[in-house]
Structures are given as structure tokens and as C-alpha cells.
């Protein structure tokens, strides 16, 4: 399972299991109403725990978490640093 699929599975099973979600790495998760702000915060905490990273306050910006693509790009950078 790829990193994107792992994140998608977490969203699909734990954060928004009621909607008919399609795997779309470019979909804006908050903009399209898939995640509300608290669900997004939950996801960020899960990413930190799962990938053993600490999201720096300067990195906690929409550009790094808006889509699955953005998240995996960010994780690639964060994991190589960590």
C-alpha cells in the first residue's frame, strides 16, 4: 500500500466513512467538504504518529495538507529531514 493509499484509508475508515469517497490525490479535502477543521487536525496528529515526524509550526500551512499529493510531498521532505 502506498503512502497516499494509507492516508486515504485512514480518512475513509476513521474520519469520513459515511461519504462516497473516491481516491483523488488532487482533491482539496477541506475545500470539498471531505474533512472539517477538527478532522484535519486529527489527520495531522495521525500523520505525526504514524510517520514519526513533528510538523513544525511553519510547515502547518494549507499548502502542505490540502490534498493527498500535498501531504505525500510534505511527508517525503519531512521524513528525509527526520
Amino acid at each position, binding site marked *: 500500500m502506498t503512502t497516499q493509499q494509507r492516508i486515504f484509508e485512514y480518512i475513509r475508515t476513521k*474520519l469520513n*466513512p459515511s461519504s462516497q469517497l473516491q481516491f483523488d490525490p488532487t482533491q482539496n479535502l477541506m475545500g470539498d467538504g471531505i474533512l472539517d477543521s*477538527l478532522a484535519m487536525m486529527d489527520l495531522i496528529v495521525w500523520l505525526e504518529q504514524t510517520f514519526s515526524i513533528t510538523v513544525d509550526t511553519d510547515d502547518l500551512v*494549507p499548502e502542505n495538507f490540502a490534498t493527498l499529493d500535498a501531504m505525500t510531498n510534505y511527508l517525503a521532505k519531512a521524513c528525509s529531514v527526520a
Partner: protein
Amino acid sequence: MLLQERLHDIAGRFPDKLALGFAHESLTFAELDQRSRALAARWRDWGVRPGDRVGLLAEPCAAVVVAFWAALYADAIAVHLNEHLAPEALGDILDDCEPVIVVASRRYATQKLAQRGPGTPRGRILVVEDEPEMFARSEGQASAAATAAETDIAAIVYTSGSTGTPKGVCLSHRNLNTTVQAVATHMPITSEDSYLMVVPLHYVHGLLQLLVHTLCGGSIHFAPDFVFPNVVVDQLVRTRVTGFSGVPYHFVALMDRSRFLETDLPDLRWIAVTGGRLPAERIAQIRQAKPGLQLHVWYGQTECAPRVTALDPRRVDRKPDSAGSPVPGVKVLIVDETGREVPQGQVGEVVVCGENVMVGYWRQPEATARVIDSLGRLHTGDWGWLDEEGDLFLTGRRDAMIKSAGERIFAEEIEAVLLQCEGVLDAVVLGVPDDLAGERIEAHVRVVPPLPHEEEAIQHLADRIRRHCLGKVPFARAPKAYHIWADFPRKPNGKVDRPRMLAGR
């Protein structure tokens, strides 16, 4: 004076001053007043009558605030709706308040209203993006002098009850004017002030701040979602607001996840924490980093429009655990179970008297009679005591209420949702301490036997129950962890042993 008459008055005094600032649009006081009156006139032509309800279901935008004031100008009642509710729960509220008009953004009209059956909601749906002209025109304005009385309902604010059925708190012009005046005097707020709104307008906290700042001639800037706290800090810097308020969750997120404490904010005069207790060490952290900033602690309830007490910033260091003393025009009593006042220093139920006490719950006289006694006093369900200076200290609740990220959640309400899930025999919902949210909601369920042995099968079962819950309640109110039990640990008298349940989870 009616709220809309005060808006008209303030728009006459500060016509060209910024009233509302959003990411991509802004309105002056004159524009806000003129557009609201023009929309009200159109709605009256459509047959909107005094006392009719107008639902508002949209992200913060100029149109939705114009629609709020238009409802008041039409002598109707404004009802801000929670966009995070599932369509079914939202439908229950629409069935309860029967709006004649629902102003909705396209996203929510599609996601939340389209699935409703034929004939519902009974009202006309106005999609903001489809009717730009309607919310922006200023011709044909309704008169500011209205037929409503100060005791008439201006807004209904929905809260959840312990039974899970929606309860519409009816707040009159007088209720809201009382707390607007109290906050404006206490802070004080003037036309020199500006405010950053991070709380949604369907919370009474958001509604009150909208009214306080607008009716004092202050400017309001609306923040996007709170998930990225540095974006909020950037906005505090950019907008140079003088005030900002939120629930403990907001401040913990700002302290732990942003540059808030180390950012120089020379224009920010005050911050206020409400909707729960910010731990004393957190208060000390803010005070140490920003000694010149006035830190207010507020306590209230939707049923009190909502302000009840406020802790003077000069007493915060000495009494960080206090909720403060009653705001002007409001009286707080501590009573025993017979309704008699207890001696100072003794714990009892917090009871509120004043013009801020709600008219009642919408179409629920029995529920109203359970909280407002024959003397017109509101029984809050909170336990507390008053010290010798008249400052209130809260010690707990009469019922099992969980406060998580600013949401008030009744355990019974979520337990009722869990019991609707096929295969669930029994449910207990607990709040467990959480650094960010204050409390984290956990579900414990007993299911129809036999309980599967395999970890994967139990996980599958838990996921099915989670799916059920998230289909009924918003993420913020749903349990975050699910524990499946063959049988609950019990005390000798047969009652569920909650401490053992927490320890064994």
C-alpha cells in the same frame, strides 16, 4: 430599541467605516445597512411575515450576514444552522423551526439540503452564488422602524439536548441587547475596536460578537478555518485587530501549533477565553509571553444570550480558575436542590436572573419549564460557588456533559445514537482528558453476543459503529475511539463501573 434599529443608527454615524471584512469582500456600515433593508423589503414582498423563520446555512460571507440583518429588518427570526450537521440532523432542525427561507451556499445546498424528501424544507432555498444581485442591491429599502417589540424573538440558536433532540434557544431583542450592552461596557468595546472572528455564527458566542462589534461601530474580520493556526496569526498581524476570543481549544492550538506567543501584536488589546476552562498553566504561559495583553475569562450559556460572568483581567493571575463575577444587568445565585440560596462559599447549582435569560425553547414549553422556574430564574445545571469577592468558581455539572474542542456534548445524546446502530445492546460515552481538545470522546459498547475473538473482526465491528455515528453526528461530536465489550465492568449494585471502564480501555 430593536437590534436592527441600533444597526441603522450606527450606520448613520459611521457610514463609510469597515463593518465586515472577508477574504475576498468587505462591507461598510452603510452598505451593510442598505443591503439588509433592501433584502428585507423584497422578502416582505414575497410574503415573509413577522415571526417567520429565516435559516442561514453558509460559510461566513457578506451575503449571510446581510441575510441575518434582513431577517431582523423583516421582523422575522434568524436561525444560523450548523453546516457540519449530517443532512438528517439538519433536517430535524428545519422540521422544528420551519423556515420560510433558507439562505445557503451552493456547497451546503447540494450536500445538505438536496437529499431531503419532497416538500422539505418547506421554505424557499436561496443559493448565495446563484443570486449575487439579491444580496448586493441597495434599492427599495425597508424602514428601520419595525413592528416587532423588544420582547419578540430575534434569533433561535440550536443546541443539543441530553435526549439528542434539537433544542432551539429563543433569544429576544432584549436578551441580546442586554448582553451586548454588558460586554460593550465591561470590555469596553467602542468604534475604535476591531475583532477577529474565528468562531462560527451558529454558536451563540459568534452571534454575540457579531452584534457587540457591529452595534458599537467596530469592524469584524472573519478568519478561515482554524486548522492552520499560523494562518490565524498572520491574519492577526495583517488586520491589526484589537480583540479576539475563542474556546480553550483555539488558544491551546495557537500556543502549541503557531508563532502566536512570540509574534509581536502591538494592536491586540484583549483576548477572551470562553466555552470551557483554560488550564491555569496555559493562562500563565500567555500572561508571561504577553504581559500587556488583557486576558478575559468568560462564562455563559446559550440560554443566557450567553454571557453570565466575566473575570476581570486584573484578577486573572490571582484567580485563574475563576469564571469571574456577573456582568452588568445579570445576577447569579447559588441554590440548593429546593431552590433556596446557600451561604456564600457553599457549592450549589448556578442560577441566573436578568433580562438576558432566554424567552424559552422553541415550541418546547415542558423543557423550558424544567430550566426556568416560577421566579423567571434560569437553572444552568452547572455546580459552583461564589467567593467573598463575588467571583464564581465552577465545580461540575448536574448531568454528564463532555466539553470537547468547544462543543458541549451530552453523553446520553451520543449513547442514544450508538443504540440506534444494529447489534449494539448497551452504550456508555465518556470524556477522557486530552491536551488539545480538553476532553476526548470515547464510546464503549456492548454488542449482541458472541463477541468475535479475532482482532480484525473486532476492528471491523468498531469501524461499522464508527461509520454509523459519523453518519448521524458531525466529526466534532462523534466518539474518536470505540471500545467493544462482552460485558461492562459493574459495581456490586449492578451499575456500570465507569472508572474501571476507563482503566480497562
